[in-house]
């Protein structure tokens, strides 16, 4: 099963949100959970990126690539990068994998590689 990360689409005004929020940013409707979930596209281009050297103690790798990606549908998301030499504007493709492991719990998130 391919794992997905979801965007939240307002049932009243169609505005897409990521991450989840309780009230639509656009129409501010206040009916409980009036959102449909829509998988975020996996493809996009890299907007900005960094390589971090001082990581939180849970990480067992010495450095970590991170970036913000502009997805095909115009939405943005932050993810880990598995790219040796990232360049702004490059095409990337994401896959949902474990991005953080805390003792027993693994957290899933998007990892981008060059497309």
């Amino acid at each position, binding site marked *: 099963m391919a794992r997905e990360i979801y965007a939240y689409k307002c049932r009243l005004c169609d505005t897409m949100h990521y991450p989840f929020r309780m009230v639509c940013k656009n129409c501010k409707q206040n009916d409980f959970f009036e959102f449909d979930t829509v998988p975020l596209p996996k493809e996009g281009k890299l907007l900005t990126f*960094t390589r971090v050297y001082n990581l939180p103690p849970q990480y067992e790798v010495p450095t970590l690539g991170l970036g913000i990606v502009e997805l095909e549908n115009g939405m943005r998301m932050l993810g880990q990068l598995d790219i040796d030499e990232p360049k702004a504007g490059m095409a990337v493709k994401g896959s949902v994998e474990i991005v953080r492991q805390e003792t027993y719990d693994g957290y899933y998130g998007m990892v981008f590689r060059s497309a």
Partner: protein
Amino acid sequence: MRDVYVAGIGITTFTRLEFALSEIASYASMMALKDAGITEVDQVYVANMGAPRVNHQTALASAVVDSLSLTPAGAAAIENGPASGGSAIKAGFQAVASGMDDVVLVVGVERMREVNGLEATDFVATLTHPIAEYIYGVTLPAHAAMFTRLYMDKYGVTERHLAMVGVKNQNAALNNEWAHLQQEISLEGILDSPEAMTNNPYVAEPLRFFDACPVSDGGAAIILVSEEKAKELGRPLIKISGVGQATDTHAVHEREEPTDLLAVRKAAADAFEMAGLTPDDVDVAELHDAFTILEIVESEEVGFFPKGEGHIALEKGETALGGKIPINVGGGLKGRGHPVGATGVAQAWEIVTQLRGDGGERQVEGANVGFTCNFGGFGNNVVCLTFEKEA
């Protein structure tokens, strides 16, 4: 609304302080109480971000108010990330302005060197969006780095500009006996020499070691009073004339224009409007330079320079002592240190010192109007204040 004045200020050295958290808060508070010449207050606000997590202490305000023997005054702690200090000052301002209280002690405190550096980084990172940011290993340096890269591409800011801010502020700290860093640095040593990459390695590309503020312990306190009380106490009349606070999306990627810091823009505009001032009226400013890039961007967003030109003003020396608008003459977060909860109050401490004319080596000549920008989250919660000296 009543006018609100700062009648007393106090601070501890910012460094690694091996004292209990409430002791650190108390030192700064005692100095401020002494400075104001008072022994009783109506209300205490304690600004702090990490006590429950880093120091395993909750309900900090109760500990502080008792340690200072100020009971039965009201007391509450305010946690608002790195903007806790500014937020506590705002709460104190509201208490006095509303007429509810006449004397309020606002003290900011943090003791984050109780844990090692990596844990401290993780603790600060908990302010990011839990599922869209934190789980990925995003830290504040990472956010600042990604933001910096966009700024470099769009406006031509270079690593040299960043290093110039670092050198300016860290060396300014040499004129501030309370500052954490007391070590001169030079562009040659951190940027140009063959050894620079080792002396000044990347922490999050393109940001390097000397682009980030140190992890510090420390406390700072101010006493806010009504006009009547201020005149009675007879300390120099320094008025808080404008208060602005604004928020922005929690997840940084959701911002429409990723190089804008709209909360800074709005908080500053609101503070200036309330005070009836413009950015040009400001004689001395404290901006939140947790990372060197932030001083450049904030100097634009608060209105000192047009968007995209902060680094040019820096090049011309306009932000240095003696320049058009001296910024962070006491070292800023970069040189003074950044005990997160204390920072907003420490900024006010510096501005009041300047407006009183007590700045010594770092005094801005004829400073009458001061400004602070306390930046929380990665720009999602910002408090700006204006201060004016009354003759």
